[in-house]
């Protein structure tokens, strides 16, 4: 309330263009563990706006929060009919595409963010993906990037949630980001962006560490780093299970 009162008192004073606003951000958790029964996670993203001068009154403050998973090179393939069946016939390699990308905003994205700012900061989903290079030999490469976005949106990996950031008193904001069960491990870059008049006035970022833990971690590491040992382990378990089954069955029948 005091902030509001302060605001009212200063209404008459013309506000400076750059109000010297800063974001102070927080996450409900800085690390997410993928355990054996992991089936997605809810992440609460919150923060506050720090000012050394009163907030400008002639423009609305807007907030965008983005969460971006680790980027990996991927191949997008297209099927077409050949010999009566559907076969992969064309492919585009995308150098870098985030495995996960969620955007949450205080309002409709096109109304709070200008095209040029989006182009520069790569905020919206299409900008984030288009920022990667596509090869020149395929004429309709935009179709592949659109397909990439479409498929990942359908899987809940890319998403835009307009109006889901709650901004209180132009100072405190908070939103929930749903992290799906099919999460890839790595560092998830989280950006907090403040906007006025469709321009970015402040931005800060932090990271969430998503890691497999326990048995999942151990199995994954073994499979990647010592594939031969992992293969032997897989065989040993299978042989043991087969032997145990036949022994148990024999005892059951005889006993």
């Amino acid at each position, binding site marked *: 309330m005091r902030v509001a009162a302060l605001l009212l008192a200063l209404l008459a004073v013309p506000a400076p263009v750059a109000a010297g606003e800063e974001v102070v951000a927080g996450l409900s958790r800085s690390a997410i563990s993928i355990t054996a029964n992991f089936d997605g996670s809810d992440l609460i993203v919150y923060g506050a706006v720090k000012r050394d001068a009163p907030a400008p009154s002639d423009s609305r403050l807007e907030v965008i929060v983005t969460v971006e998973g680790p980027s990996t090179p991927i191949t997008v*393939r297209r099927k077409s009919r050949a010999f009566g*069946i559907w*076969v992969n016939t064309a492919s585009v390699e995308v150098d870098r595409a985030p495995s996960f990308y969620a955007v949450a905003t205080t309002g409709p994205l096109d109304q709070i963010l200008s095209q040029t700012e989006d182009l520069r900061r790569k905020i919206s989903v299409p900008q984030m993906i288009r920022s990667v290079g596509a090869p020149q030999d395929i004429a309709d490469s935009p179709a592949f990037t659109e397909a990439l976005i479409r498929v990942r949106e359908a899987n809940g990996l890319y998403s835009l949630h307009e109006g889901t950031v709650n901004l209180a008193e132009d100072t405190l904001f908070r939103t929930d980001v749903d992290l799906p069960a099919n999460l890839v491990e790595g560092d998830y870059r989280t950006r907090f962006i403040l906007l006025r008049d469709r321009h970015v006035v402040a931005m800060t970022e932090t990271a969430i560490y998503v890691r497999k833990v326990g048995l999942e971690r151990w199995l994954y590491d073994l499979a990647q780093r010592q594939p031969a040992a992992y293969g032997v382990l897989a*065989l040993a378990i299978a042989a043991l*299970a087969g032997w145990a089954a036949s022994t148990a069955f024999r005892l059951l029948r005889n006993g």
Partner: protein
Amino acid sequence: MQIYLPIAEVSVNAFMLFGIGGLVGVLSGLFGVGGGFLITPLLFFIGIPPTVAVATGANQVVASSVSGVLAHLKRRTVDMRMGVVLLVGGLIGSALGIWAFNLLSRLGQIDLAVQLSYVVFLGLIGLLMFQESLRAIARARKAGPHPSVKRHQHLWVHRLPFKMKFRASGLYISVIPPVLVGIAVGVLAAIMGVGGGFIMVPAMIYLLGMPTKVVIGTSLFQIIFVTGFTTFMHAWTNRSVDLMLALLLILGGVVGAQVGTRFGARLKAEQLRILLALLVLGVALKLGVDLLIEPRELYSISAAGRP
């Protein structure tokens, strides 16, 4: 209960996996089939990446074959010598299959290759089984004398060089046909994640002329080592064996096989065989139709360098 599979990197229902393992276990208990040819396509249907499904399917076959072969070793119904000859071919075939698998992966055609092989082989086997069980039912109705099976026919197979004595089978034949059979089965194991018993058993009876009593034990002996080698090679070159997935399938399979064996003793085999034939045909049809109709999404995404 959802469970996160560390290699497949998807989260699936643990009871569903247990159920798939169990269902296939029941079938293997009932009919004495390995079940790899059903597990792998069922894993496709629930969204496990085909490479992981094939590699993990092979691992599951190892477990079910080990439990089967122990009983046969005790009864001395394994022709070790023939098993080793088949195995030599199997290892060559599996290595070839793994090489082809990795090549097709790089070309982005592995899903298609795996699906096509399933459509062809499941369709063929389903039809043969269907026909065979119809004939069996007709035979049971007539209740005539059992037709005598002719053995020791002198086929072209017997004129080949490199002859070898197989005492347990009572055969003196060239090693070339069994090695070729082994190679064919090894290729199938690597590309489809199956044991290949459904190809090897008829080939051993009709092509090599082995006596029926040693056929199952010997084929299981060969399958253990070929699927074992295949599992290892997939784990080594593709890192695509998911132990968590394999464990759930094996557990389900073990329980299911016990149930299946008990039921099998009580139920009529011919009618059940028709059901199995229809199930196999159904899976082949579903996979085939998926290839024929236009997919809802023409584009697919995969990690670069991986299928």
